[in-house]
């Protein structure tokens, strides 16, 4: 379970954009997973199940703090800055930072689906299971957002 911690923490950081909230959510996720492990039904993978808990706890936290409309977009990059590997390739770091900025322009709900797909590696079916949205809707929305994200990234890097 420890191997999941880093990815889920980074996921929560990108959704919440607030270091303290991330710590709270991470704690909730692992407690809930630990306590609920015996209730895990095996219909999905353990990883999908954990992602689902993280996703819902993040959204719960956003609702609780009434931040859905005003997600801390500008904080996002700061929360995730400072990883030691980022010193290796300046070009890659610049692209990652630009991408973080573009991700920050998405609503938390949309950003979370995109991160579930790519950063956490879930399939459309698994995302549909986690979010409760129809599989086709998930796919269409992600395929609609990618061109915007590509344009935004290009704009950030050239502008």
């Amino acid at each position, binding site marked *: 379970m420890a191997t999941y911690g880093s990815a889920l923490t980074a996921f929560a950081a990108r959704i919440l954009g607030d270091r303290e909230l991330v710590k709270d959510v991470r704690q909730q996720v*692992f407690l809930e997973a630990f306590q609920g492990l015996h209730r895990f039904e095996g219909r999905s993978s353990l990883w999908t199940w954990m992602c689902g*808990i993280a996703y819902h706890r993040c959204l719960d936290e956003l609702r609780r703090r009434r931040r859905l409309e005003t997600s801390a977009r500008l904080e996002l990059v700061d929360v995730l800055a400072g990883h030691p*590997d980022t010193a290796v390739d300046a070009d890659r770091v610049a*692209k990652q930072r630009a991408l973080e900025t573009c991700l920050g322009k998405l609503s938390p709900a949309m950003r979370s689906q995109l991160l579930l797909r790519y950063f956490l590696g879930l399939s459309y079916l698994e995302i549909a299971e986690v979010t409760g*949205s129809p599989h086709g809707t998930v796919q269409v929305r992600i395929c609609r957002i990618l061109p*915007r994200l590509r344009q935004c990234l290009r704009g950030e890097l050239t502008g």
Partner: protein
Amino acid sequence: MTDRHHRIAGPDPEDFADAPSRSDAERAESAWLQARDHDPHAVAPAGGLARDYAELEDLLRDLPPGSDDHWHDDVLRTVRARPPSPSPWWRGPRARWTWGGAVAAAIALVLLVRARPRIDELDVTIRHVDRTRSAPEEVVVGDQLVVTARPTTAGDLRVYRSGDALVARCPGGPRCTITSDGEQVIELVLDAPVSYQVILVVGRTEPSPGGTLAAFLSAARAANARVITQVPIDVH
């Protein structure tokens, strides 16, 4: 999945994902992306798009993780990785000012640290025994768990095995040591290939129940106590 699913809130009207498509080219791109999910050889509507998306998706997959748990290690690593200066800086003409600034900064740091309120802390360390393991960080049966808690007020430190079995607690348990600084320390051998969970509850003063983790947590929450924990430890 859990029975606690919720539908997420509807689309944010300001989200650029939900704005109508701005051009035919963008619609074509989106349609191609959908087609590509079914047929990896689907032809992109414009040259270079496949490469652009390969890079974008690679960046999305490879976003850096956060570093909040290891910030001090990161700082040390970064400092050590910096190339040495061409000449010793302390021999320069501004050395006096630099030293003065450093001393002032150190004093300010000490004052700042002392002024900050104490926080509850929980450290978990695994002492590895000499056994075969598939990865260096893997925890195996026989490793020793050392938990150190520094609660700001009354703290109840516990270790549970598989969610149900209370295997150690501090204060009040045989594996508990309390230092003169008020640190609570539990040391125990991880003797089964299951998950272990470390929990520190701060602020409860009434006697705690000795039962399951769930009962303990619900009692702590009912008493409005602070619950601190870490990632469960999977023992192989």
